[in-house]
């Protein structure tokens, strides 16, 4: 195999120069001549009937173009519905009107829209709108919401249950429990998080009445999916709607769904004949853009005296908020329940999830989406079992880890490739696990609180293939598209249906293409995000961009190369089979002096006078790639913490991540993904939590109250990779975007609770802030 020039190299992100110097082009950087600005009046109550709205005073303000209520939009824009219909789960048809007209169901619901010549005036107008509400009883707690007599949020779901999803795999849990030495029960809360992307959401819509074409620039992770859903809701044919997602400042899942905002400005642009723009304020982003996680789980685990975990029965309530967001039903079910065997040889999994409606912000995919929740549960199980049996938590994992791949999990998944045990041992070795256990034992004698946490995970990502996506009720397939086009000068443009928004694929995709085609990386440009330029594609989420989008690109590049070889053979007057390719040159085997460069071949493909018989001019290929299966990255993370004995503030002393993400395209970028992911996960363990009061007001509606850790708070994350190529895609890659978030929450919580284990603390729910730790110890009557 020839030496790789680009693949696997630490190449700096080409997107950074523009992004770090303020030359990125985001939705809020765009403005068209005559643009007007929309602002949304959000509900004053989390649950209220709207009795009347008086807009007269607002409309009289100079500079206000109009004020529009739910009545206006009712028949013009179809309400949003989820795109993940969840087969066999009795999913209720919940509708989300873009502007509510009868009642508001959470504090982010839009009650009226003001449009003005500038955003300041639009916000002035909001203050002058008079709404008469009839407050209704509010329910924010999902355990309360499913009780008889709870306030009903949607008539379609009289008990506030939007679906009930069940999965049983392997032996029956009761029979396995009867055979087990022990059965343990525990309740776990996986609390609500707020994605908080650096760029808030927004849209700019422009309608050309002469052509009937609507162009919408929107903060989206999946512009083609946005177009399809918006087209249906707005009644604009898909070919007359162009959706452009320019630079997008992070999403973490929150920019997958279609929200009311983009539909409102689109409709108003058509009606007003002027471009209409709206950009969320940060507070709106906290209240109105979807949240993540929010599970309450009761589980039973059956295990042997040797620490073998035989079976799990899991009953989860998943808070979905006031409406079903685009992908919401699939997150706490397909992406969670099927992962409940984890990297372990569990023989029985019986999981039931109820999706619960409450008067809170809708919940949908947030980095990891379902898999962090599954990993958290399993890794708490391992530690709890270890504790009950007096075993080292590492040994319990050793007893249970899957030996080799491919592995058929009882939940129905087939893990692709991996050395689960080797990676586990490597992580422990790199983190000096045994040494830390000794330090811990000495430290305890001095009254210090040191803890060590392990988290082993496996995740399904590279979200595809379509046959599985469809079988679960997902509204679309899950494949990806690519066009690789070599221009007459030999330069290359690649069009991808993925839409990276911070992950660095403008660089990694260029590496893949430059490697495949043997051209300099500078000659390759990656285009994404514009439905008028790129073929239909599914977008960027679920760590799918490189395995699926990159796979499509590699296949397209290979197809182009084959065509180029045929043309080269014709130019070299040789047989195709005798033509070899290396570093951008075709030559005749055994006659290296007889050669043509790929640039010469490219030109020849367009001059088209020396093409082989029957060959079409041009040099490009389009590929729609539907992988045969998911990819399954996995790994083990180890965290060491010390808790301050007076303030109870935990400090991470060591964090080691060993991940197998398959072939690593760019270690620099992959490590960056691990660093960011780990920090986002440990943030849930120690810092972040969303709080609603009983009236449904979000108390953490800004960065001052919602505690995202800063650079100063975060530890050094040591990231290592082990490469076992995935057989499920042409590159052998598995995906890295979510690994850190999936693994780290449990590693950190396990470490903190391990530090307290000798004080009689078995379990405590996150976030383990200093106050929470102090409180846990106080409740136990422990003086640390």
């Amino acid at each position, binding site marked *: 195999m020839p030496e790789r020039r680009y693949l696997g190299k630490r190449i700096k992100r080409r997107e950074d120069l523009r992004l770090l110097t303020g030359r990125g082009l985001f939705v809020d950087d765009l403005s068209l001549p005559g643009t007007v600005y929309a602002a949304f009046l959000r509900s004053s109550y989390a649950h209220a009937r709207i009795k009347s709205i008086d807009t007269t005073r607002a409309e009289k303000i100079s500079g206000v173009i109009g004020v529009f209520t739910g009545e206006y939009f009712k028949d013009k824009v179809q309400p949003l519905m989820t795109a993940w219909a969840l087969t066999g789960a009795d999913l209720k048809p919940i509708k989300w009107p873009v502007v509510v007209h009868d009642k508001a169901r959470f504090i982010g619901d839009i009650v009226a829209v003001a449009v003005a010549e500038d*955003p300041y005036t639009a916000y002035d107008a909001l203050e002058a709108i008079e709404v008469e509400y009839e407050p209704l009883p509010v329910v924010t707690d999902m355990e309360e919401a499913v009780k008889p007599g709870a306030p009903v949020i949607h008539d379609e779901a009289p008990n506030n249950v939007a679906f009930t999803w069940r999965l049983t795999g392997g032996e029956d849990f009761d029979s396995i429990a009867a055979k087990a030495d022990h059965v343990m029960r525990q309740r776990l809360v996986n609390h609500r998080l707020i994605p908080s992307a650096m760029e808030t959401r927004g849209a700019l819509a422009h309608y050309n009445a002469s052509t009937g074409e609507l162009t919408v620039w929107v903060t989206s992770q999946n512009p083609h999916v946005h177009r399809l859903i918006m087209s249906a809701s707005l009644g604009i044919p898909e070919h007359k709607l162009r959706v452009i997602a320019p630079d997008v400042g992070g999403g973490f899942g929150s920019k997958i769904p279609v929200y009311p905002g983009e539909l409102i400005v689109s409709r108003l642009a058509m009606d007003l004949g002027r471009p209409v723009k709206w950009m969320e304020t940060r*507070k709106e982003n906290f209240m109105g853009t979807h949240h993540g996680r929010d599970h309450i789980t009761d589980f039973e685990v059956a295990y042997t005296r040797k620490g073998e975990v035989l079976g799990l029965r899991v009953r989860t309530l998943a808070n979905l908020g006031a409406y079903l967001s685009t992908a919401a039903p699939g997150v706490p079910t397909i992406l969670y329940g099927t992962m409940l065997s984890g990297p372990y040889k569990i023989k029985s999994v019986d999981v039931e999830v109820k999706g619960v409606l409450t008067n809170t912000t809708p919940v949908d995919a947030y980095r990891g989406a379902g898999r962090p929740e599954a990993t958290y549960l399993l890794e708490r199980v391992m530690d709890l079992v270890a504790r009950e049996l007096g075993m080292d938590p590492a040994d319990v994992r050793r007893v249970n880890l899957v030996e080799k791949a491919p592995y058929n999990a009882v939940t129905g998944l087939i893990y692709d490739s991996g050395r689960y045990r080797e990676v586990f041992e490597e992580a422990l070795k790199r983190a000096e696990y045994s040494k830390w256990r000794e330090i811990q034992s000495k430290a305890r004698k001095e009254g210090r609180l040191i803890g060590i946490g392990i988290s082993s995970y496996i995740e399904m990502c590279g979200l595809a293939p379509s046959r599985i996506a469809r079988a679960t009720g997902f509204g679309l397939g899950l494949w990806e598209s690519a066009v690789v086009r070599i221009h007459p000068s030999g330069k290359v443009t690649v069009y991808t249906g993925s839409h990276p928004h911070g992950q660095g694929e403008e660089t990694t995709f260029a590496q893949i293409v430059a490697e495949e085609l043997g051209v300099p990386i500078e000659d390759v440009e990656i285009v994404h995000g514009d439905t008028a330029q790129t073929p239909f594609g599914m977008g960027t989420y679920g760590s799918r961009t490189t395995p699926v989008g990159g796979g499509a690109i590699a296949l397209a590049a290979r197809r182009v190369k084959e065509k180029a070889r045929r043309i080269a053979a014709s130019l070299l007057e040789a047989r195709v089979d005798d033509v070899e390719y290396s570093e951008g040159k075709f030559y005749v085997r055994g006659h290296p002096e007889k050669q043509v460069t790929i640039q010469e071949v490219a030109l020849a493909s367009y001059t088209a006078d020396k093409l082989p018989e029957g060959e079409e001019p041009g040099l490009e290929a389009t590929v729609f790639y539907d992988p045969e299966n998911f990819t399954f990255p996995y790994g083990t993370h180890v965290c060491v913490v010390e808790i301050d004995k*007076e303030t109870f503030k935990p400090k991470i002393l060591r964090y080691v991540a060993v991940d197998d993400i398959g072939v690593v395209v760019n270690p620099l970028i992959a490590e960056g993904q691990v660093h960011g992911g780990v920090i986002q996960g440990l943030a849930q363990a120690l810092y972040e939590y969303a*709080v609603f009061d009983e009236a449904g007001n979000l108390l953490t509606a800004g960065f001052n109250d919602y505690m995202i850790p800063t650079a100063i708070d975060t530890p050094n994350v040591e990231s290592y990779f082990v490469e076992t190529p995935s057989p499920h895609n042409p590159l052998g890659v598995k995906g890295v975007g979510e690994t850190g978030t999936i693994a780290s929450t449990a590693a950190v919580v396990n470490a903190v609770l391990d530090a307290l284990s000798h004080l009689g603390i078995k379990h405590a729910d996150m976030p383990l802030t200093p106050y929470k730790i*102090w409180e846990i110890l106080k409740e136990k009557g422990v003086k640390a």
Partner: protein
Amino acid sequence: MYPPSFKLLVPQSLDEALKMLAEHGGEAKLLAGGHSLIPLMKLRLARPAYVIYLGKLKELSYIREEGDTIRVGALTTHSEIESSELLRERCPLLAETASKIGDRQVRNMGTIGGSIAHADPAADYPAALVALEAEVVLKSVNGERAVKVSDFIKGPYITDIDPQELITEIRIPVVNGAVGSSYEKLVFRASDFAIVGVAALIVLGKDGTAERVRVGMTGVAEGPVRAQGVEEELEGKKITEEDIDKASKKASEGLNPPSDIRASSEYRKAMAEALTRRALIKALSEAKKKA
């Protein structure tokens, strides 16, 4: 987040600023570093008709020692205070406190006058300033007056300032001799306001007895408070660590700190004790070095 419209006034001198305040006082807000005012305006919680920008008044940015007083101009930034050699030498408690405010960006813009005027109940300066027994100097077209910081801050975001006045200066009595001090701040996340902050100052006499002990706390009440029980317990003693352990337990006496989504009142009381102990131990060790 878009504020309602307002008129921006930019005085070129203190006199001009005072005249503007005399005219618009009740409807005006003063803008210095902007860290408190601008977020409030963007949330439309503050809606001044006039914003008077003080950035041109370089005459209010200084740190100097005159006689037995250190004078800090109201527009002196936190980073200027943090890095002032004069303060590091003569009043290290204030420099240390400034170094623990917010983050670098906040310290480069925020001013001591702005912080005191805003009177956030968890702000850092007030703990140090009550321990230092500092005064706030207020000026209007009608004249000047000086008020002790402990009297000036009357509650959360409430001060003894007249709408026509502005803060020109903070005055700190110089403390000579074997002085040790420390500001201990507990945050759950870097650059936040304090959950609890404790400033301690110890002055040792020639024989090693504590002539003066001052403990100022923030985050535990409606404004900064002195832990007088602790001070009384320790003053006049040749303080040992055991004395500090014992005295610190009095730090939370009579306190009824706020409870919020971050932490309970009870936790804040426990932390007031813990941080008082830490601050006193550091202050004692510093003072002993100078004795």
